[in-house]
């Protein structure tokens, strides 16, 4: 029963978020700020996890494919497909949810418990629209880009680590990453990231926006935001994979 209450309140919040901003100039300024805060500040994390994961996946593919009948270019291809199909969208978003989701939930939550949200409402400002819409727009703009960057870096990680560890020759790896390349998979990664970004930022905002109590509850809300966003990202991963790849 609580579940349906949450869904109802979540949809209600979405309706509040998606209305016309009070001042377009201020809105644009906020979007740029959020792009920096939520997007650009995540680049370091994305670079590190993508490079290393691409490297590790390449090594594991190499060590598990010692059958001489399997051509070694499959290693490069395998890494490319893993990156595009799952890592650079789903896994990346799950990791970023830990950072962005908790940040969003705690920022909005602490504004709630210190009456800053009441303060906005009291001025006649739609607080959900003012606080959350810039975050949604920023994340939807920047995370799909980060996803593509992540796929490139993951493939690059394999390119460096594979030959260094001796599991694949550079030429074979490069042949692999270009072998029957389906551009549709890039589109697939971008669509998934787009949906997951929306889930992450709106669910986290929901938890922050509806905090009741004090600092302790803000902490709990931030944890709940990350857990719930992650679950929904996985559910939608299943749905989108079925819908787009069948």
């Amino acid at each position, binding site marked *: 029963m609580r579940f349906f209450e949450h869904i109802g309140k979540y949809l209600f919040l979405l309706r509040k978020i998606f209305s016309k901003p*009070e*001042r377009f100039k*201020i809105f644009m300024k906020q979007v740029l700020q959020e792009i920096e805060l939520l997007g650009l500040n995540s680049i370091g994390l994305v670079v590190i996890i993508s490079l290393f994961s691409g490297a590790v996946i390449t090594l594991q593919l190499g060590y598990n494919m010692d059958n001489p009948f399997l051509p070694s270019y499959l290693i490069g291809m395998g890494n490319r497909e893993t990156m595009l199909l799952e890592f650079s969208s789903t896994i990346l978003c799950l990791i970023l949810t830990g950072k962005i989701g908790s940040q969003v939930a705690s920022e909005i939550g602490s*504004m709630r418990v*210190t*009456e*800053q949200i*009441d*303060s906005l*409402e*009291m*001025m*006649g*400002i739609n607080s959900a629209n003012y606080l959350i819409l810039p975050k949604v727009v920023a994340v939807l703009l920047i995370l799909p880009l980060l996803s593509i960057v992540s796929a490139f870096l993951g493939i690059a990680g394999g390119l460096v680590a594979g030959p260094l560890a001796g599991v694949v020759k550079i030429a074979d790896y490069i042949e692999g990453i270009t072998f029957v390349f389906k551009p549709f998979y890039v589109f697939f990664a971008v669509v998934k990231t787009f949906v997951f970004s929306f889930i992450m930022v709106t669910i986290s905002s929901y938890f922050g926006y509806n905090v009741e109590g004090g600092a302790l509850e803000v902490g709990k809300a931030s944890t709940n935001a990350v857990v719930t966003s992650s679950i929904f990202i996985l559910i939608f991963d299943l749905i989108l994979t079925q819908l787009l790849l069948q």
Partner: protein
Amino acid sequence: MIAINNIGKSFGGKQIISGISSTFENGKTHLIIGQSGSGKTVLLKTISGLYQADSGAIDFDGRSLMDMNQKEQKLLRQEIGMVFQGGALFDSLSVADNVRFPLDMFWDVSEAEKRDRVDFCLERVKIVDAHNKFPAELSGGMQKRVAIARAIALNPKYLFCDEPNSGLDPVTAIVIDNLIAEITAEFGITTIINTHDMNSVMEIGEKILFIHKGHKEWEGSSKEVLNTENEALNSFIFSSKLTAQLKK
């Protein structure tokens, strides 16, 4: 003038305030007093429209809050300045930007005019050298004063202050009280202040509303308050040794 008639509010089936009626006049400072948990904040937030009243009527100079649509309520809110119990300054904005915020949102005037207005409001609350500081860098008393500056930025007709001087030393508390009372008289604002500070009652209370367990227990002037026969009010006012001795 704000007139409230028989207003009530409950949360989750629990009645918090009920049957409260009163009037609040222009250019006067009205105090709502009562114990912690008696429902002062809920009453103030209900009058302001932040909480929707379950029953009763609230009129702002003849305009009924209950009959307003969303757009009209939004316009009314621009006539209301509110100082929240904790100050509620935006902690990502500097002091000057906090005061400027409502101007940026609702005023179509030049940069220079906005800057002048910010300076005027901050000067009015005696904050001079803190324009670029952030709320976290201010003392509690300064935060309250900046909150007052922000509340008066748009020249409000109505000013609501929730315990503007709680947690402050007696000297600063009186400074803030007097500040609000002065601004109220100067600009003919209808001001309602929540407090449980007896100093405020004696200093600036032109009309006092005593809330006890969610209903209006007593109403009168600050002179009448000391000679009241009302038992609940008496035990509220004369609860400390100091005030009890003063009475003798």
